[in-house]
């Protein structure tokens, strides 16, 4: 199967490009540079070509998923000084004592990494994963923490990780957007999280509400509702004829050539995008493997987009902030994990079978984690001091645990990883030096990691 993969992708990439372009290609050769997709990278050999980011908005609880803390049971109900003081400095909400996780952890894979009973299928892939247990971020509210995780800053004024990535690497498939965001509805803060900010507009994420049943509803104006294929093709020929003559009467015509070319791309995108988004074209066996939930559909769509060369696919688990379990933490984690377990495992397995996992980086996590202490009766509050993400696939040293939180899973204490470090590492795996990927704006060079960021070499294969 492995050896088949590239040719299949090649096929997908070139499909639909055969129409009436021969005459145009020589005309456009000179202008190709003007619209060339960005080549600010890679700076060195990439380990991953693409990213699929599974974003659990609201903040999953690390002690109920990937960071087992048996000490919680021994100290149930206590409120350690460190936790009490940290809270006093920043928030006025009363915190209860430590709340043990009711979920059993079991060791998986050759690496024997323990994972909660809530995620048995995903856990089967621990040998592909690096589990970073020592993340920390800078703010206990969703909006600023979402900004930090997506934009590398607390305020909503900078480009997103996906925008930086496409700015750095361009796209592998010009017939599809380079950065696609799938979310049924919108996460908190919405489009700011995939904003291009001061980068050129083509680097903004294209948001698709994948819960809409028809593929053509996903991209605005993707389908022409008035004309059939033949009529559209005829109209496009007419536009081309008018444009080429207009161009020939003018000098310095790079801008005009660029738009002529863009018109052709738009035309091809209609068929290619419809195909890419149409998960019903997958065989039954594959669809069964992923499951029938909305999230399953998104995971399958993510694979279809990724294998067609979409550089960055970000997949929000749900609208709003579903993982924000201030109440009923255990019950809701059981339901949430139950919903993601099969599709995530299917995605990893599917990518692996197709030989794509080696070149696709898959990440999982939220904007922060949750407290080991109780909030209200049975909830957990936000925790930015220590939480877990995992990364799998392209360039990742599988079967790794990186970093440690304290005995209660509250604060990262060893091999701490800030969000900037996570960003630096993701870019590194894509062959980008995070210190060199800069954009000059307002008189100075900006970068995703600001003046921070350290690549976590320990999780790189």
């Amino acid at each position, binding site marked *: 199967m492995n050896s088949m993969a590239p040719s299949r992708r090649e096929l997908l990439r070139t499909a639909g490009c055969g129409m009436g372009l021969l005459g145009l290609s020589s005309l456009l050769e000179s202008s190709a540079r003007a619209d060339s997709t960005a080549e600010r990278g890679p700076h060195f050999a990439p380990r991953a070509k693409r990213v699929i980011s599974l974003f659990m908005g609201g903040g999953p609880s690390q002690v109920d998923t990937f960071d087992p803390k048996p000490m919680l049971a021994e100290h149930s109900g206590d409120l350690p000084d460190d936790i009490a003081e940290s809270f*006093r*400095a*920043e*928030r*006025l909400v*009363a915190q209860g004592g430590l709340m043990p996780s009711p979920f059993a952890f079991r060791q998986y894979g050759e690496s024997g990494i323990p994972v909660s009973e809530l995620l048995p299928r995903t856990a089967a892939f621990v040998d592909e994963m690096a589990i970073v247990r020592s993340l*920390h971020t*800078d703010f*206990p*509210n969703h*909006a600023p923490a979402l900004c930090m995780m997506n934009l590398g*800053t607390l305020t*909503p*004024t900078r480009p997103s990780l996906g925008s930086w990535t496409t700015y750095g690497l361009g796209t592998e498939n*010009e017939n599809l957007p380079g950065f696609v965001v799938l979310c049924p509805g919108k996460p*908190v*803060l919405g489009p*700011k999280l995939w*904003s291009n*900010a001061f980068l050129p*507009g*083509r680097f903004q994420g*294209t948001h698709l509400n994948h819960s809409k049943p028809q593929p053509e509803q996903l*991209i*605005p*104006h*993707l389908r*022409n*509702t008035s004309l059939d294929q033949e009529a559209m093709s005829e*109209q*496009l020929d*007419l*536009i081309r*004829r*008018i*444009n080429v*003559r*207009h*161009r020939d009467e*003018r*000098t*310095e015509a790079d*801008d*005009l050539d*660029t*738009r*002529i070319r*863009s*018109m052709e*791309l*738009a035309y091809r995108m209609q068929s290619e995008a419809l195909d890419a988004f149409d998960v019903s074209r997958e065989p039954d066996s594959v669809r069964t493997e992923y499951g029938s939930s909305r999230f399953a559909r998104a995971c399958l769509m993510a694979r279809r987009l990724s294998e067609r060369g979409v550089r960055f696919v970000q997949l929000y688990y749900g609208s709003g902030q579903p993982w924000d379990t201030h109440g009923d933490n255990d019950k809701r984690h059981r339901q949430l994990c139950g919903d993601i377990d099969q599709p995530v495992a299917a995605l990893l397995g599917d990518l692996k079978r197709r030989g794509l996992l080696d070149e696709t980086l898959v990440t999982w996590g939220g904007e922060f984690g949750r407290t080991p202490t109780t909030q209200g009766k049975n909830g957990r509050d936000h925790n930015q*001091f220590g939480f877990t993400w995992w990364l799998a696939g392209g360039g990742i040293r599988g079967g790794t645990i990186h970093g440690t939180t304290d005995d209660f899973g509250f604060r*990262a204490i060893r091999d701490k990883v800030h969000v900037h470090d996570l960003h630096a590492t993701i870019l590194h795996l894509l062959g980008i030096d995070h210190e060199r990927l800069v954009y000059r704006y*307002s*008189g100075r*060079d900006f970068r995703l990691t*600001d*003046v*921070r960021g*350290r690549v976590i070499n320990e999780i790189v294969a």
Partner: protein
Amino acid sequence: MFQDLQSRLSKSFSHGRSLLAVGIAFTTFFAVDVGVADDVSPEANAFFESRIRPVLVKQCYECHSADAKAIEAKFRVDSRNGLRQGGESGPAIVAGKPDESRLILALRYTGSEVSEMPPSGKLSPEVIANFEKWVAMGAPDPRTDDGKVVETMIDFTEARQFWSFRRPRRHAMPMVQHTGWPRRPLDAFVLRKMESAEATPAAAAERRTLQRRVTFDLIGLPPTPGDVKEFVNDESPDAYERLVDRLLASPRYGERWGRHWLDVVRYAEDNTNMGPHNGPYPNAWRYRDWVVSALNDDVPYDEFLVRQLATDLLPETGPDDLPALGLFGLGPQNHKEVQLSRLVIQNRYADDWEDRVDVVGRGLLGLTLACARCHDHKYDPIRTADYYALAGVFASSRQTTGPIVAQSLVDASEPARERVKQLEAEIAKLEKEIAARKKKNPKQDATAEETIKLQEQREEIAELKKTPYFELPVAHILTEETILVEDTDGTRVKLAVYPNRPRDLPIFVRGNAGKHGAVVPRRFVEVLCEDGPARFERGSGRLELAHAIASPENPLTARVIVNRIWQFHFGRGLVPSPSNFGALGERPTHPELLDDLAVRFVENGWSLKWLHREIVTSATYRQSSTAAEDSQRVDPDGRLLTRFPRRRLEVEPLRDTILSVAGRMDGRIGGPSSNVDDAQFTRRTIYGKVSRHELATTLANFDFPDPTIHSAGRSVTTTPLQQLFVLNAPFVRNAAAALAADLLDEHSTVAARVDALHERLFTRPATDEDHRVALDFLAAEPNSAERWTRYVQALLASNEFQYVD
């Protein structure tokens, strides 16, 4: 941990690597004493020299030594005292106690309140262990030099020699060879530059091309066939000047240029995330309308600014002018979660102020003042004190809503509102009683008496609501009130409002609201005050700030707006970095021209319409977009202005023109905004809603700038999504169908229709080739509405429609 956060914030403003040779002088003073080292044993000495000093030199000196470009955190490690005393954050070493020494905590990367150092990555465990051991030994340090005082001083007299800080002055028109070319004074400056580069101007643009260009430029719409006839047949020598006058007098001018201003001031109608203390702003449109109307009235630019900053403090303007305050009344606000601690919320307010200072800085003055929030500006003579002197003005003003009618009208209608409130409460109470009764026994409905009472009360409310000004029109404004974040019962903070209690802010050390330096009186930016900055005395100081900006003494304000106006006309400013006139900004391509124009602009009463006229009637502006052959070689990127740059229509004129040529444009001016993505929305695009939370797709796809932050100019990108819009959007298809129906209705032959269409879309007659192309497409069904719709749409999608020569 918030210090950690803030040091990250402070870091976020540090600048690029290369220090350019800048025209201002920073002088670093530090007193050098010769100290005497404690007795340091030979072993300790050896340990320091072999294990400690090399690491300090290699890892720390770049930022923390006398030779550093700017000494970070005022902390030096290249001297014994410097290392012991520490910097802004306090002592770095507690001898004998590694766990209490900030230096060690920094090296350990503990993520505590101490910044992790060095920022490039954690040092190896062995190195850190050496430092721990050394501190445990008592931190023996054999060095004897003393880097006590570390203070960056700015010599303002010298700093004011930088080009943009010198007051602009008139310049004599330069001598040129081609004396017949210049039409306006600015042309001589342009031509002089060209001639010295051995370039020649392009030929004058053809008459219709020029009319199309200037019409789009000034009103954002194409000329109608009637306009074209009027101008083309006008043989008088000042026909063009009169055309320009007609355009500047059109109310469409304010809609076009108002939108340019709204980009500069990041106009929007809501916030990124919304809560009880941060929007949305349902009356934002009143500010938009104020801007449009002020531009149509040619309000002098200095007055235009003063009113936007402080019309509430002017005796000559009344409450109807309050929408002007939307400049800051609509400023982006960060969500304030009152269940977080005081310090956290104070930092969020500090984030808000940064936007205000940035709009004043980059937007009005062309200076990156906001860089000085956490540290003195690295390249420009701007100190954190300057930043907090301005931030104090905004900390003493409150963003809120207020009625825009006279207080007497508010008072007169107040009893009616009170009475309605009372009646509504009574109705609610009675209805609740009836409902409760009915729930117990479904048969016990309202009595006749109750029904009559409710009926009467409702009628009274309806009557009261007819009171004049019952619904008070309001705008988003600033008031002379200060908000303080106060602790209450420990479960939430209070955002307490104090009228008329302006406050001076302390410098927030490294941007941290919890760490205060010296208190700075509210005042203007020092480098812009030749006689030293005067303390603002009146209330918040907004009016004094406004006068300091809108002053002929201010070397930047006039230059910056003249340059922006130039940029909107030509696509590029004389200073290509329109919002950065500082050391890292670009230098003007035509400095004398910029200065001369700025001075004459002020002399002509800060009139923007004067400025437009001066520019668009120039020979420079009236050139063809095809450069002369020699100039194509000498000036390939057009910096010498050897041609008029061809430009693509922005989203507003593009969408407006599609509506207008199809006869579908609803030309009403002003009022609340609507959804621009709605295919049935037929007003001009400026009346579409602008959202920080979610920008309309049509706007986002066509390079509309992020309205969360000041925009220095729009980028021009070309994407397939834009083409999908013109190919497939019902909005475009509807317009094409309406236009096709018109043509079929008004003209009987294909040729006549093609002629009329080209006049309407392209401001020119159809050529023979145009007729051939049309016939090829239409001949089979010359009277089919569908066929014509497709043809018209192709023309709407064409480059000629979107690009203006």
